[in-house]
């Protein structure tokens, strides 16, 4: 007997009897003998005690560091109640809400999630989530070419996180979508270059704010240029910064996407995170993924249901908007509870603290000879400096003191070697920052 398998010997006998076969092996007689001839070479079964011991060892092989790095993954505070709530089995173990009468829990939180994402972005409609910010951006690219069917070119700002650009490239290739880079002007997407590059074949323009250097981009005047060529405007934005910053809707975006990990989701070595996507109602029928809507049941009671499913793969098959099926639903619940708990003032306060602390660290580091300013541009919680010492030496030293140092942009782009990007959230105390400054000052 085994804890996950309840069958007793008597059960098995009775069941085989009902089926009318002599042995379990008879149930596998349809598999050619040739295919059954192999030996599994996998570890032996572990008891719970052995399992815990093994994983404690593995966990100890990772070093917990205090991050001053972001680059797409931010160490924000997670209210304790979130994990308690998302681990309720009713949420955790349920499947996709295809039987709405017994899935109102999932459907309701998706509806609340959509409501919060549309509030943050100013857009009109959100889907139920995407895998991550990078793939959400790739799906936005597909939306552009689906809406502007004859236009096959996408303009991508050079100031976007290179990982997102890489994902766009991988997704664009099989569909022969042409990606054209918009160069930067001192750390900001260059509007002049955009005007030069945009043409009648451009289906979409994709930009990111805050960008890879942490700079807040200002898209005043962009949508006019983009609309004139009947292209779509896609803004990838860290949603946590939307407590303060001008929204994609205010800049005239057609699609807002991004990585919502910054809404309190643990770092977890890169996943599970959650991509978000929101758009205008006129584009809703081209949006990928699940959308939840309000309706009534036969007694007239308010209820929720997946709607506009004729866009999706399980109905439309090869004609679907996207192949997405499972997404990151439980993480959408995570974000919904985060935004409920932090609420209107909490999100603002946490982000204002991140903003203040990042600016404090920026000012203090510039007093050291080891660092120089690079860009004269506004930033939010991440900023880039020129580092006058060997970055490997610096980061090794910081690691010895328990810190994860800044990102060397050389990792992304050879030409940017020596430019380092620090991230500071509300979790970084003055004490931690002062200690970091002391260590760096002594190098």
């Amino acid at each position, binding site marked *: 007997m085994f804890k996950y*398998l309840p069958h007793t010997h008597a*059960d098995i006998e009775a069941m*085989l009897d*009902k089926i009318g076969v002599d042995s379990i092996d008879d149930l*596998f007689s*349809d*598999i050619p003998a*040739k295919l059954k001839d192999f030996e*599994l070479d*996998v*570890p*032996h079964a572990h008891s719970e005690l052995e399992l815990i011991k093994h994983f404690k060892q593995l*966990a*100890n092989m*990772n070093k917990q560091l205090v991050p001053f790095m972001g680059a797409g993954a931010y*160490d924000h505070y997670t209210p304790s109640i979130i994990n308690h*709530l998302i681990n309720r089995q009713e*949420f955790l173990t*349920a499947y996709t809400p295809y039987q709405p*009468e017994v*899935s109102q829990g999932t459907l309701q939180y998706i*509806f*609340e999630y959509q*409501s919060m994402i549309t509030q943050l972005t100013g857009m009109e*409609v959100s889907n139920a989530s995407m895998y991550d910010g*990078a*793939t959400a951006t790739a799906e936005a690219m597909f939306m552009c070419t689906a809406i502007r069917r004859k236009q096959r070119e996408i303009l991508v700002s050079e100031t976007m*996180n290179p*990982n997102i650009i*890489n994902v766009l*490239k991988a997704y664009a290739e099989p*569909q022969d979508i042409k990606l054209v880079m918009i160069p930067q002007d001192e750390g900001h997407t260059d509007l002049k270059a955009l005007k030069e590059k945009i043409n009648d074949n451009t289906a979409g323009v994709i930009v990111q704010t805050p960008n890879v250097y942490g700079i807040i981009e200002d898209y005043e005047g962009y949508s006019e240029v983009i609309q004139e060529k009947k292209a779509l405007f896609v803004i990838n934005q860290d949603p946590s910064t*939307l*407590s*303060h910053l001008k929204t994609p809707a205010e800049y005239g975006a057609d699609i807002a996407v991004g*990585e919502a990990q910054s809404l309190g989701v643990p770092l*977890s*070595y*890169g*996943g599970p*995170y959650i991509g978000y996507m929101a758009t205008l109602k006129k584009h809703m029928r081209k949006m990928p993924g699940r959308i939840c809507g*309000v*309706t009534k049941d*036969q007694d007239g009671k308010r209820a929720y249901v997946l709607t506009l499913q004729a866009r*999706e793969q*399980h109905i439309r098959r*090869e004609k*679907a908007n996207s*192949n997405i099926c499972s*997404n990151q639903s*439980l*993480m959408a*619940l995570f974000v919904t509870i985060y935004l409920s708990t*932090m*609420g*209107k*003032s909490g999100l603002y306060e946490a982000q204002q603290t991140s903003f203040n602390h990042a600016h404090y660290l920026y000012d203090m580091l510039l007093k050291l000879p080891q660092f120089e300013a690079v860009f004269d541009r*506004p930033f939010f919680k991440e900023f880039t400096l020129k580092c006058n010492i060997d970055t490997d030496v610096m980061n090794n030293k910081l*690691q010895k003191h328990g810190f*994860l140092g800044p990102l060397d942009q050389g990792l992304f782009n050879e030409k940017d070697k020596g430019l380092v990007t620090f991230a500071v959230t509300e979790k970084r105390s003055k004490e931690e920052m002062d200690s970091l400054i002391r260590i760096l000052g002594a190098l």
Partner: protein
Amino acid sequence: MYYGHTIFEKSQEGRRGYSLPKSEIKEYKLDEKLKRQSCPKLPEVSEFDVVRHYTNVSFKNHGIETGFYPLGSCTMKYNPKINQDIAAMEGFSTIHPYQPVETTQGLLKIYYETQKILSNISGLDTYSLNPYAGAHGELIGLMIIKKFHKDNNDLKRTKIIVPDSAHGTNPASATVAGFESVEVKSNKDGTVNIEDLKKVVDDTTAGIMLTNPNTVGMFEKDILEIQKIIHEAGGLLYYDGANLNPILGMARPGDMGFDIMHINLHKTFSTPHGGGGPGSGPVGVTKRLKKYLPSPVVRKAGDLYLIDYKDEDSIGQISHFYGNMGVVIRAYAYLLTNGKERLPEIAKMSVLNANYVKESLKDVYKLPIEGICKHEFVFDGLKDESIDVRTLDIAKRLLDFDMHPPTVYFPLMFKETMMIEPVENESKQTIDHFIKIMRTIAKEAKKDPSILKNAPYNTPVRRLDEALAARKPIVSFKDYTDSLKED
């Protein structure tokens, strides 16, 4: 109906659910022209408001622990609690994805070891754990097929063969990967029609996507012939791992001749479905396709685990980081708990359960495909076709008995499909109870079809007006309050 409210309707101005430390740092000012014009309308609620709200919201869901969940092709098995504890360990959850590899050896070891076990179980060479879900895995697999033919300068291969019984994601993924799908017909028992396959295969065939056992639970007995036909025509075979559970330790897709496959860790390896993710869809390949796997790749050099971004032949990057690591940790724990000893038992007990349900109900429900099935099978409505009751009605009535219905109206081969997958964790007692209820429902249908047609009665809400939702989409709380003003 206070508990029926949304979180927005519980909001009271000035209420708070959080506490943040006081900061000694002075306030910095953001340039006015970069500021949003109005505040986002987020809820203002206390911590307890949030807890009670979402606890009550959860009560409106049926989970695996609530009751039987025989949802075909979804493998709704028990999600062990210990795996939750393990994934939540701080040594995993607090690690930044860009930490130097010397500080993340434990996580990289989990990644590496998991891909090694998956390779052995499936008979393939190597896996990438970067794909986030089954459909994501399909897309990555198809990108690899595309790159393979492109590298061979075999550019006319634009078609992917997909059986009519395939999951909807298969043809959808083919389109996203820039292929055209060609449908191949099934035999009456749901297996691939070899004659039809020979007709559709030619020098434009890039590959075929198959689930084996297929979506009606039948093992493709002719799989070795199928692989010969496809390979001789120059195509590749893709295995959709959605139905891997019943062949664990019994047969391996790699030995069947498959070149590429994905595994749904949230099905076969028990990681929670989460109401639709996060899942994980690792993609495995044979040796000759290894170089195409997505970047980055985790590899081992001596005793050190490394992350490699520099493979020139790779299809490129398909995720921001390394996939859903938190999900991979749970799957690895499940693999170790079961180990070599139990993996074949999983397959055996899932197949035993499915055949038992099938044989126990085929006198009242129409069984369109006779014979031994694997982990799942389909009924085509009630056996007595004179009764005016549809599969949808049977499904809705099941809800009244605290059971989740089977997958309905899929695959599309039959009119009243009910696809039943009673996983290995379910005891004979639970299954007998299900059988009893299914019989009761069949009796009710005969006596008075309206009982079923008006079901469910005991659920949080009853049947929904789906047409209304589509006609007038209300997709946010703002839409909802606007709609109230209109009324």
